[in-house]
């Protein structure tokens, strides 16, 4: 019996919003990698390297900041999916776990910023 098999859809990720957000989320990983490479250069140079002040470089790093922040938000939002926390049989709703994650993120960021800048 013949059946019809649809052809591969190469642009599937443009077909709806969730797909596009998904792909955007995954592509943040490129900037995660870039951020690490850049930070390695910072360590190597004992501070932001010489070209860091160039406008295009700052522009790239602004995008990298946006991407890593987007990564942080989406990743911390998805975390409760894998872990179902039950207290006394009551399932802790996702938004509370997410809220906890985001608060922790802000606290850690604050501490890091304090440590880095305290000698300045």
């Amino acid at each position: 019996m013949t059946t019809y098999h649809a052809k591969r859809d190469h642009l599937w990720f443009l077909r709806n919003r969730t797909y596009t957000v998904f792909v955007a989320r995954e592509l943040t990983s490129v900037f995660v990698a870039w951020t690490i490479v850049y930070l390695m250069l910072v360590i190597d140079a004992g501070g932001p390297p010489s070209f860091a002040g160039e406008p295009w470089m700052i522009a790239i790093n602004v995008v990298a900041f946006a991407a890593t922040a987007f990564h942080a938000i989406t990743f911390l939002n998805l975390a409760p999916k894998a872990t179902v926390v039950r207290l006394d049989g009551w399932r802790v709703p996702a938004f509370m776990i997410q809220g906890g994650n985001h608060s922790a993120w802000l606290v850690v960021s604050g501490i890091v910023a304090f440590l880095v800048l305290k000698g300045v």
Partner: protein
Amino acid sequence: MRRKRTAEPYLWLLFSGGGVAAAFFLPVLILLFGVLVPAGVVGRPDVAALTENVVVRLAIVVIFTLCLFHAAHRIRFTSEELLNIGRIDLLLAVVCYGGALAGGVVTAVLLF
């Protein structure tokens, strides 16, 4: 469906750990060292002094390696999905995770 041992659970744990590390540390670090300091908004911190402590240096190596693993994992799967190149998965995996590992080694060399 084949039944076989798989490395995925370990890779997934590294990926997840890296996701958390990247979420917690990267936005603030890139904001400081990539944008605010070069733009002159805040003063230039002394990186050598910050990494003086061995514990800090070790932590940096671990965090960087995990973040690179996270990125490697996503790049591997996303490129397979977007470009439909699942058949070269093994090669991609070697390149991606190998790259991440190499990054970790370089970080260690720089710091120690």
